[in-house]
């Protein structure tokens, strides 16, 4: 509990690629559908993690507002 797990930017980029491969989407189209609220089940999970990865990488985080 409360363990700090450090990672690298390279590992996060690889995780992002694997996530997108798993859901069979590119990030732009996934986020475009998120903006419309039109995601399938597992895509919601993927988007959550993509946002966290973007944040850790210091990229602008997008939101499915």
């Amino acid at each position, binding site marked *: *509990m*409360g*363990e*700090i*797990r*450090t*990672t*690298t*930017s390279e590992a*996060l980029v690889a995780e992002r690629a694997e996530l997108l491969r798993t859901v069979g989407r590119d990030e732009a189209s996934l986020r475009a559908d998120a903006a*419309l*609220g039109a995601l399938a*089940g*597992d895509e*919601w*999970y993927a988007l*959550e*993690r993509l*946002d*966290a990865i973007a*944040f*850790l*990488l*210091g990229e602008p*985080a997008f*939101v499915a*507002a």
Partner: protein
Amino acid sequence: MTDELANKAADFARELGETLAATLPQAPSVDVQAVNGQNTFIVQPSNPDGTVARVPLLVNGAKLAELSIVLYLDMDWTGTFLKNVRTDCAAYSVLDRQPLFRMDYRADMQSAPVAHWQFHAERGALTHLLSMAQAHRPKAVESPHMLSRLHFPMGGERFRPCIEDLIQFVIEECGVDAVPGWDRVVQAGRERWRRIQLRTVVRDLQLEAAETLVREGWTVTPPSNKGLTESAATLSRW
């Protein structure tokens, strides 16, 4: 990443983990993820192998849904303190893995309320209203067929609900299983949260706080080394 900041993030995770473990059965551990050399942190439930975990929501021992919790920590504007800049909480059904409802907070939110609920449900009469409104105000109502596109505002940055409110909601209103004694933990955590928020508001509005204390009989002496400034932006944003 300084040790001090990392330790604060770890304390944050430990506190959340203890709250979840004391309220919802089978709650996973809560850990911190960070990139070497940076002062941003993700706090969320995780499995022993470090992968993302979700909190199971059980009814009579059967898992029917799960709760996702992700907290984003970043430096505040002074570059000194860790600040919770975003929180994403969502309940997912095991039936279709679509969100049932979401409770989100983003300090930098521009268009939607800084803190809001979203419900992934439908109601014909509301859809009718939204459809009619869209004809006149298409920018305000972009997707009249989706109730989940509405952001129900809930108190802004300072007065938003805490995780304990969400926990009590799923236990008392949704009827999920709870750990015996959960209510005391939730009440204590909520009080802790509100005291922290109160201190922040007092810092934002020092003159207002001083005037209130004077009215209550206190003698308050303003600091001589700085002018009084007020930061009410968080109070006016929705």
